[in-house]
């Protein structure tokens, strides 16, 4: 696991590193990546929490099929996801052609990046939140009901706060998955600088012309990923807001 990362760290031309990672195109790509990944995470939470509630609470055979469909992006090659999204939201797509008439064009826009990232990252959030809901079980909700709380109060004051740690873990995983998204994004959103060219696309592109820059940007992405992982381990088990964020980064030093 560590060997490729170590090799990458050794490959980095440290003298050029600051200059490479602060170049206008690199900065634009990093900011776009962070912005779209954050937006995708919010979208995942908005879509995923209700999905997880249904999956954890409703019983029935049809639900197995629904769960399989929700989890499909986990096992689907991202490029296939991108083509599927294009078929749905592209200019001649199933929904896309109607949206086109309304003057809304999604494909090859920043919205497409967010959509592609949400598509691949959603299962991570659903799985985390559903797991948390199943672990908590119905017992707290039942007790709350016997104390006089109606279903919406139970949801707002008991169930959702109860899954907050699971939601946080799921959000971090979704964010990380969205940040690394490449295949679906490139297929569905393309690679326009500042609009749809995320950091992974930028790395892929500059590799052709300047391998050194690609290595430096890759390492930048490793740092961001490590910060995210450290965030998960610092927050979730203790739930008291740990300080592992810096410890995680400290370990990376060459």
């Amino acid at each position, binding site marked *: 696991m560590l060997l490729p990362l170590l090799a990458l760290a050794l490959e980095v031309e440290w003298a050029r590193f600051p200059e490479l990672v602060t170049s206008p195109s690199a900065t634009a790509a990093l900011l776009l990546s962070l912005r779209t990944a954050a937006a995708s995470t919010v979208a995942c939470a908005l879509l995923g929490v209700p999905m997880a509630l249904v999956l954890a609470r409703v019983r029935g055979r049809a639900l197995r099929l629904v769960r399989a469909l929700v989890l499909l992006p986990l096992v689907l090659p991202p490029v296939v996801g991108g083509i599927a999204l294009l078929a749905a939201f592209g200019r001649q797509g199933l929904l896309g052609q109607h949206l086109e008439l309304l003057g809304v064009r999604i494909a090859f826009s920043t919205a497409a990046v967010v959509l592609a990232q949400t598509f691949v990252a959603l299962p991570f959030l659903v799985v985390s939140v559903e797991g948390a809901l199943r672990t908590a079980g119905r017992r707290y909700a039942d007790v709350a*009901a*016997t*104390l*006089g709380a109606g279903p919406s109060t139970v949801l707002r004051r008991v169930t959702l706060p109860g899954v907050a740690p699971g939601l946080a873990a799921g959000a971090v995983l979704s964010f990380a998955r969205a940040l690394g998204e490449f295949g679906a994004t490139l297929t569905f959103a393309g690679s326009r600088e500042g609009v749809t060219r995320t950091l992974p696309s930028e790395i892929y592109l500059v590799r052709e012309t300047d391998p050194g820059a690609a290595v430096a940007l890759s390492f930048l992405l490793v740092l961001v990923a490590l910060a995210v992982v450290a965030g998960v381990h610092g927050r979730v088990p203790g739930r008291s807001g740990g300080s592992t964020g810096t410890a995680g980064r400290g370990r990376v030093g060459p």
Partner: protein
Amino acid sequence: MSGLQVRAEVPARGVELDLSVAPGEVVAVLGPNGAGKSTLLALVAGLLRPARGRVVLDGTVLVDTAAGVWVPAHRRGAALLAQEPLLFPHLSAAGNVAFGPRARGAGRRAARVEAQRWLAAVGAVDLAARRPGELSGGQAQRVALARALAARPQLLLLDEPLAALDVGAAAALRGLLRRVLREGRPALLVTHDPLDALALADRALVLEAGRVVEDGPAREVLTSPRTEFAARLAGLCLVRGRAVAGGLELPDGTVLGGVLEPGCRPGEEAVAVFGPGAVAVRPGGCALPGGTVVVAEVVELEPRGEVVRVRGRGAVEVAADVPTADAADLDLVPGTRVGFAVDAAAVRVRPAR
């Protein structure tokens, strides 16, 4: 009609119950595991729908399958206190207690005042700011009781509230429950402990295989049991047979000498009840004058301080308390066949139902 009336069938769990609780009455529900005790609480709380049945609390119909009536759990006024406190982990003790008042629509400030009042009632004011994770089992159950009471329930449903606590904490909470229940709150108390039933309840029900098999004042059910389960709880022997003049005829034809209680007529189905203290173990099988010897195989030996309780199984199940020294002399081991001599004067025979 006030109080609680329950008539419900849940075929999936083999449950068919018919019982009532008078206003202000505390009813202990005893019974072996799987007898339907928790099902009863779930039916009343509104967490389980019966296939057929009717539940009425203080004149309000909560469930009537024939008329299609179903009142959801949160509109029933029946608060549940389970074996585990189940305090909401993201709220402080005070926040947990304020939950009921808030759910009822009380403002933040009013709910906080009420929470303080109930925490004071259970002696847990100093725990108000703590998180559930920072409370001991006994403290958490105290807070959970305050939370249940703060919801101002018309009926308290207690599902073995003391079972998970150590002896000291259980005793303290038992005292607290006694005080709270004395204030005229009707309650259903599921328990395994005869002490709880005697200390807290007015009446005791024994459930077996989903049916009410005994129903009477708690003291009477536990001192004059009519079922094996209640007898075991009370530490008594109970054997079934047919009443005859001077005792009880066992299935194998032996007559166990005993005293027929008033109202028990020879010829009817009856039970004989006696304490293990009235039974002696005779290796030779010779009877005492005025006693009966039941031959049985020793199945279990249970040391109880100065005596050893010897359980035997023959045509019927019997137990004897043998002084520890004698038990050693008799060389009793499981599998030995011995005579259990039962003192007829200590055997009470009464109708089976």
